[in-house]
């Protein structure tokens, strides 16, 4: 059973990897922002499966923290990305 769960976590990780390639490639910043979404779901699933496979319940706490921080990073991405997409507020500030 442990091996099945570990294999499943490897499979989900492979899906995250493929998705990550697609998402990082862009071209829009909105695509790249999905990276956090990918970890917020796929990364959590990988961790939960690993936790069950190895009987280390503390991994569920890592999943919890990753879910929270992925959401936090997503907000930072959206705010930062929105600023990057916005028209420039008058070129560089020169003295």
């Amino acid at each position, binding site marked *: 059973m442990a091996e099945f769960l570990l294999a499943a976590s*490897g499979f989900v990780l492979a899906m995250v990897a493929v998705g*990550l390639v697609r998402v990082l490639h862009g071209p829009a910043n909105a695509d*790249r922002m999905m990276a956090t979404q990918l970890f917020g779901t796929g990364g959590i699933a990988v961790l939960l499966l690993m936790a069950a496979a190895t009987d280390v319940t503390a*991994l569920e*706490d*890592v999943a919890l*923290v990753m879910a929270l921080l992925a959401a936090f*990073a997503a907000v930072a991405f959206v705010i930062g990305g929105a*600023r990057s997409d916005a028209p420039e507020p008058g070129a560089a500030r020169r003295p």
Partner: protein
Amino acid sequence: MTIDFALDCGIALLVLAVAGWTIVARASFAAVVGFVSFGLLVTLAWVRLAAIDVALTEAAIGSGLTGALLLGAAARLRSNETAKQAEVPGAALRIASALLAATVAATLAAAVLLLPDPAPTLAPAAAANSGATGLGNPVTNVLIAFRAMDTMLEKVVLVLALVGVWSLAADRCWGGMPSPPRGADSGDATAFLAQLLTPLGIVVGIYILWEGADHPGGAFQGGTILAAMWLLVMMAGLAKAPAISRRSLRLVLIAGPAVFLVVGLAGLWFGAAFLAYPVDHAKAVILVIEFVMTLTIAVTLALLLAGPPDREASP
């Protein structure tokens, strides 16, 4: 066994692929997204190395907070980016530095392969002395008891770094408020997420702190989560950053190192040595230190990310 090994190799290759992509990415925004992904993958590597405490720290600080910090800077530097992209160094320098980097990597790899066998370890010593503190998590034992001096000095470093960041403020803004990155018009959804996530995050942060006594977790991880939640509320515009001249704020900032120092000096006064904990109440003293430290870490990390004050203090 083979599945284990394949999984490890897969994670390692993925870490390296994302690392390489991050280094060569053109736009800063893309590079920072790559860096955050890199950090979250390294978290998985730490999990596979059976270092759950470190995995928690990496997910929280190494990936989440550092990513947000770099992203805020990237957004402010945006107008500069296109103009300066031409300034890539020449091919000769790039080849030379690639050679240097490859040499360093090869040396490190050789060091990994040539590590002594059996490996030196302090684990038996940590296990033998764990009874002295009454805590079940060996990493917390090392952090708060066996190497408490390191941890105390690290708190001092955090406060010094914050002093350094603040000292970069313009004169007229001294004592004023920092302005962490804020959503301009994405208003409702950000505010909703902040309202939804913050109470949950505070519970999780305290839970991780509490778990830290006997299971992976602790003051650093819990404090970082609390810091992230405070920043989330500020980013959503639901709360303002505090003026840095506020006395209550400054008291919280020095509370962590101060409690450590008081306990340390008390150990010198009543007991055997600096930072020697009273034998009968070691666990209680450690829990008090951890609790105060968590508060200090949360506030310090959040303010480090918020940057120097750039608005004058409002009367």
